[in-house]
């Protein structure tokens, strides 16, 4: 099986190996707008975090928006997304209401998980976004199972599973990719190689330069993309999604990118050279797309400004909604353990008869 590595992104909007159509102007604008909103949302979240308005740790993807937006923007509601800890924004791209997302940050009763998970670990059942655990790479394996079921059910839904460079060292990563290959499953593995796993540089993670190469071990295509080029990312993801939908099996997409901030909201990231950070900031995916749209006469500062303002308002409303939402009741700690209720069992230990029954 042919394995592509490092397809150039430059030609992405004007040609496609498989003969796909050109990307419409509307789509280009939508890609930009979505990235911008993701950025605004996460900067908002970080600001709130700094003011200690919500608790727990947040993992920002600022700088990596192109990879997420390019991969997830065209997904259908029925398609599943398997996010990692850093993919809070996949929820937004897929269409989760902001109220729900900010309630997640605040751990309120209005959050999809009713206050159980850490702030960034957001899932959403109605749109088939797996509620993430923290176990690195575990989402890939569950995603693989969804893809298996899609295949069994003979529908054309697909799965997009996100992970980071660090995740590639874990056995789980390997088992998911290998299994997907053996069964030709409709799944796309998007590995956001941001060069660091917490404080560990990629050279201590793997001996290979391009993670996409690892797909060769499984016998399906792997491709390295400039993960800060949303158009390239979109194009490559589009092809992979088409392949998956039509029974062509999995693809591994390595998006080379960079996180601007620390691993999480408590990490000053002193292990990275300031020059490295600065160099990557000049490759800001949003600024790059802005230049690109400007060249194509698709961009005006007014349009951007208007978006910043109107989306800013939406964010404020969502924050307001979250902050006004009630805390969960302490006793809800006992809910959703099983399909049956355990409150009686736990609360009144003298009432011995379990409250559940079949």
């Amino acid at each position, binding site marked *: 099986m042919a394995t592509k590595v490092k397809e150039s992104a430059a030609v992405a909007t004007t040609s496609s190996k498989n003969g796909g159509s050109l990307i419409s102007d509307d789509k280009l604008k939508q890609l930009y707008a979505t990235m911008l909103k993701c950025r605004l949302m996460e900067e908002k979240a970080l600001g709130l975090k700094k003011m200690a308005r919500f608790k727990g740790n947040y993992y920002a993807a600022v700088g990596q928006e192109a990879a997420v937006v390019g991969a997830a923007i065209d997904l259908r509601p029925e398609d599943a997304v398997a996010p990692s800890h850093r993919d809070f924004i996949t929820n937004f791209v897929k269409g989760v209401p902001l109220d729900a997302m900010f309630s997640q940050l605040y751990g309120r009763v209005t959050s999809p998980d009713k206050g159980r998970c850490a702030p960034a670990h957001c899932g959403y059942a109605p749109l088939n976004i797996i509620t993430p655990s923290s176990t690195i790479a575990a989402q890939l*394996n569950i995603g693989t199972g969804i893809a298996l079921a899609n295949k069994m059910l003979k529908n054309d839904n697909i799965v997009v599973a996100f992970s980071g460079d660090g995740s590639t060292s874990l056995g789980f990563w390997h088992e998911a990719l290998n299994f997907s290959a053996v069964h030709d499953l409709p799944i796309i593995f998007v590995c956001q190689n941001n060069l660091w796993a917490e404080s560990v540089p990629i050279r201590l993670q793997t001996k290979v330069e391009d993670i996409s190469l690892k797909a060769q071990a499984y016998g399906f295509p792997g491709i390295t993309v400039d993960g800060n080029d949303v158009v390239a990312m979109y194009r490559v993801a589009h092809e992979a999604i088409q392949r998956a939908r039509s029974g062509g099996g999995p693809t591994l997409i390595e998006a080379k990118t960079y996180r601007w901030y620390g691993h999480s909201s408590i990490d000053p990231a002193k292990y990275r050279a300031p020059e490295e950070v600065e160099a990557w900031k000049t490759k800001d995916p949003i600024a790059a797309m802005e230049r690109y749209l400007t060249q194509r006469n698709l961009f005006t500062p007014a349009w951007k400004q208007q978006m910043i303002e109107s989306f800013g308002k939406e964010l404020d409303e969502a924050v307001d909604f979250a902050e006004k939402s009630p805390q969960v009741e302490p006793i809800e700690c006992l809910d959703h353990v099983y399909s049956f209720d355990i409150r009686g069992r736990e609360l009144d230990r003298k009432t011995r008869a379990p409250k559940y029954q079949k």
Partner: protein
Amino acid sequence: MPVSYIEAIRTGLAEEMRRDERVYLIGEDIGIDGGAFKATQGLIEEFGPQRVIDSPLAEGIIVSSSIGAAMIGMRPVAEIQFVDFITPAMDAITQQAAKLRYRSAGTQTCPLTVRVCYGGGTGGGLYHSQTNTTWFAHEPGLIVVAPATVADAKGMLKASIRQDDPVLYFEHKRLYRTIKEDLPDGDDFIADLFHAAVRREGKDATLVTYGYMLQVALQSAEKVEQETGATIEVIDLRVLNPLDRDTILDSVAKTSRLCILQEDHRTLGIGSEISAIVAEDAFDCLDAPILRVAAPDVPAIPAAEPMEQFYMPNVEKTCAALHKLLQY
């Protein structure tokens, strides 16, 4: 016609697969080979390789893919060939399956069944004899069952498949072909998934056990009655998580004496929790210490027969404990 424990498993699987298209099987060697113990023999012929999947050698993905499939409506039955090899699936079982419903506040669930072959006494040695039920009985969110009779082997398996929670179904390899029972006809034979069962009534002491050890318990009770006239109530736990406190407490209220028999080694075996429940909630009923008949605290069951026999709880050791209890 009496059927064996393993036949009961096989027909249970077949009936559920016929009843519900969403039920499928996945595991190592379960297809063409019909499983290491032939529990799935003939199923690939009837249901094809799409529904009887010979998976790659990777317990992690066997279970975790089943979680994903279950999330969107399938009813997977995964097989772990030997519980000794369940460790690669530890994350999938304890961190994913057990916690998915909880972490999504009930919006995402994974009704899957994991069939786990366990148990010793067959000369399998360190890595083909383990029990390891504690790891999972300790995890809220999982239902853990361990059928000890042929009727339960079938009825609890079918119930597990229909249950909307992840179920670990522990089947004891030594029961596969050693016990036979007549079973009710028809495929609507579903066993309760939540209660322990009194397998033998008695009034002088309660003996709690599960799995293969039920055989040992019944023989011991019989023997002690012949020797002393005392009657021993034998309780088969059936469900290891969440535990049915009632049946145990009611029995101890009647007998005032409790002995626990487990194949697992002593420390933190299931018996520890049974003992703790009774010492907490039925202390006043007790007329004697709570005794445990268990394997010694060594890492696993050695292969050589003298050591295996030293290791395994048996009728002799159980009777000795019962005598001690009755004489107390």
